[in-house]
């Protein structure tokens, strides 16, 4: 590829933070507040039921405020000094290996802080209404706080092991929240599945960290970024691939994507916050954060791009066939993260756009999930879009905000999604035509399935269940929708004279100039054309026909495959789970029968020998005498043998 900086060429930016000083306290508080909230809510027990949700919101909003303070402070500094560190304490040391909890606050962390606390706050507020009738609401907010704290650790940690801490923390929170309604076996199963598959990704992170230590003698960003140029290509590629594996787990990228759709078992705010806006984007964060690795290894980046392309198409296709509104959105999330990963894989040309898209997506996808939640709220928690229809009158506000999100995701200017996705498509084409084409097609499919979703939900005829009376949600739920809608609409402003790119430069390095054969404008127009096509197709095939309340069975292979999530689960089931179980059962037999059998067998055989040979003691004195004689003979033979051998 054309953009790979050679080793002698542009050095990757080193992480050399200056001490945060007075801001350090704020950094600690940003994490501390939600952590404290979680502790109080989870340990406090029933006592905190009455005001628990309020505390939950308060802590996160507090963090938001602090994040803003920090952000503007950072904005005040000039680009060189936008890396702050706060020393805390040494986590552990072994030999020359030392891991600390020191925090790293730089432009990348800054935007993530805003995203996490911002969207987090809105969703907390929303949940107050959404979970109002759940007797375990207090615990729900405890978990949410826990998640926010962990996510903040993830993005503020200055060391790969520190990242690991947050990484697993959010995993735990997601496990708890997906399985929040544990009495539903499906929820419990989904939660476990999510955690286990994430663990598979963690193999990547563990070994990655190990390899980084072996290579650089440390896992802190400071040391690694300073020395990465001196490492060999093979090692860097290996590290890159291991980190990619981790990212795949967390961000539901192929081949570890299957957990995300099941994760929709969790309450909708969870889907919005964790499985759309923040946690699932951690993989992208990891790749961008490790730019000092990826920028130097073309092979690893290629792998990243491939994964990104596959997933963005997979997700899109799945999104087209799902009737469950949340699963459709989940498919879309996969696909959008695919875009981000793809962008991140482009190296210095793409890092910034990956983050840009991550931010805008965080806004509009959260917006739409909450919208979906609001819809379900009105439809008695029915998630099947085939039972919706013509809701725009029933819940106008939800419709309006949702529409903004819709326009944003399919990339209609001037909404946020247009700017971010457009940039990615451009860079993709600039990098490689096939990749660009994937991105472009993806955009088209996105337009299709989102339009389908819109039409099925808000337009076409009513297909409501009996006794369902759709109604607008309470204000506490609609205000966050409005807030997110605004962000979805205005997110594009971040690109005004490449602000986001310059902002991230200190972290990801100089934005390599791309030389595109056609002008950006043309590119955008093509993209818009494709999008329009997608919308049109949706209008023709969904909008113009009347939708059956039951999903038709006789459908094309493609649709069936898409409904089965492209057989990702089936594959795992057949290739891993079933053989695994039979293997385990076999092992149990082996353990009892062979490993333990040998032991027991030895004991038994001794007993057998004993009970057989005791019969030799037959009670006849003359046979005893014979034994005695034999013994004498033996003794004499032994003596002679020794002597004459």
């Amino acid at each position, binding site marked *: 590829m054309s953009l790979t900086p050679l080793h002698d060429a542009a050095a990757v930016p080193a992480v050399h933070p200056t001490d945060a000083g007075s801001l350090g306290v704020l950094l600690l508080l940003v994490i501390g507040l939600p952590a404290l909230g979680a502790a109080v809510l989870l340990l406090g027990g029933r006592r905190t039921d009455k005001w628990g949700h309020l505390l939950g919101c308060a802590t996160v909003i507090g963090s938001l405020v602090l994040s803003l303070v920090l952000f503007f402070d950072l904005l005040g500094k000039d680009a060189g000094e936008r890396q702050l560190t706060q020393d805390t304490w040494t986590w552990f040391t072994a030999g020359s290996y030392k891991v600390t909890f020191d925090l790293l606050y730089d432009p990348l962390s800054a935007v993530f802080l805003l995203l996490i606390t911002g969207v987090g706050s809105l969703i907390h507020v929303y949940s107050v209404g959404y979970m109002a009738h759940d007797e375990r609401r207090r615990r729900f907010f405890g978990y949410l706080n826990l998640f926010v704290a962990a996510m903040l650790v993830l993005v503020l940690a200055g060391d790969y092991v520190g990242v690991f801490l947050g990484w697993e923390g959010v995993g735990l929170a997601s496990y708890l929240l997906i399985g929040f309604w544990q009495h539903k076996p499906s929820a419990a199963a989904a939660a476990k599945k999510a955690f286990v598959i994430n663990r598979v990704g963690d193999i990547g992170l563990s070994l990655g960290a190990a390899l980084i230590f072996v290579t650089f003698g440390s896992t802190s960003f400071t040391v690694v970024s300073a020395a990465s140029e001196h490492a060999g290509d093979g090692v860097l590629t290996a590290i890159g691939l291991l980190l990619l594996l981790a990212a795949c787990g967390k961000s539901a990228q192929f081949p570890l994507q299957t957990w995300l759709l099941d994760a929709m078992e969790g309450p909708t705010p969870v889907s919005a916050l964790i499985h759309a806006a923040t946690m699932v984007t951690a993989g992208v964060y990891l790749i961008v954060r490790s730019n000092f690795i990826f920028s130097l290894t073309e092979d690893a980046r290629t792998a990243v791009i491939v994964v990104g392309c596959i997933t963005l198409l997979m997700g899109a296709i799945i999104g087209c066939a799902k009737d469950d509104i949340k699963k459709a959105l989940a498919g879309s999330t996969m696909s959008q993260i695919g875009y981000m990963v793809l962008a991140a894989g482009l190296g210095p040309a793409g890092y910034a756009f990956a983050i840009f898209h991550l931010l805008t997506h965080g806004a509009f996808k959260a917006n739409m999930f909450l919208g979906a939640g609001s819809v379900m709220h009105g439809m008695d928690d029915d998630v099947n879009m085939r039972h919706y229809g013509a809701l725009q009158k029933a819940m106008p506000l939800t419709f309006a905000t949702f529409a903004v999100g819709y326009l944003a995701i399919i990339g209609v200017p001037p909404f946020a999604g247009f700017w971010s996705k457009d940039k990615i498509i451009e860079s993709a084409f600039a990098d490689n035509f096939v990749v660009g084409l994937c991105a472009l097609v993806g955009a088209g499919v996105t337009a299709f399935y989102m339009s389908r979703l819109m039409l099925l939900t808000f337009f076409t005829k009513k297909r409501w269940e009996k006794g369902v009376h759709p109604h607008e949600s309470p204000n506490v739920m609609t205000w966050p929708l409005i807030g997110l809608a605004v962000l979805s609409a205005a997110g594009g402003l971040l690109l005004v004279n490449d602000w986001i790119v310059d902002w991230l430069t200190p972290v990801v390095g100089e934005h390599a100039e791309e030389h595109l054969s056609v002008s950006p404008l043309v590119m955008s127009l093509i993209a818009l054309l494709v999008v329009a096509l997608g919308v049109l197709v949706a209008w023709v095939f969904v909008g113009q026909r009347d939708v059956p309340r039951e999903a038709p069975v006789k459908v094309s292979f493609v649709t069936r495959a898409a409904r089965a999530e492209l057989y990702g689960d089936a594959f795992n089931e057949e290739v891993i789970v079933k053989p695994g179980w039979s293997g385990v059962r076999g092992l149990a037999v082996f353990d009892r029968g062979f490993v333990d059998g040998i032991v027991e067998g030895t004991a038994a055989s001794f007993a057998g020998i004993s009970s057989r040979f005791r*019969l030799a003691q*037959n009670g*006849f*004195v*003359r046979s005893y005498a*014979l034994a005695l004689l034999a013994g004498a003979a033996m003794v004499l033979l032994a003596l002679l043998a020794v002597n004459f051998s």
Partner: protein
Amino acid sequence: MDVTPFIVLSAILFTIGCVGVLTRRNAIVVFMCVELMLNASNLALVTFSRANGNLEGQIAAFFVMVVAAAEVVVGLAIIMTIFRTRRSASVDDASLLKY
């Protein structure tokens, strides 16, 4: 002098005694066979005493006889009791203790 014939004879006697012990059932006979073994030993002792030119062997022979006599006393006592209780002097009948 050549001791070989005497030793060979004593060995033969000893062997006869052994075989007797192993083959005969009657306690008394078995016991006599043991005596035969002892006497075979006596013959050997006396022979070697002669060969070595000192008396220890011959003295030993006397001791062996005395001891044998003592053994007879004890042995017969035991055999008698067994015989009286079991009405048989066969060593094979006394085989309650086994395994």
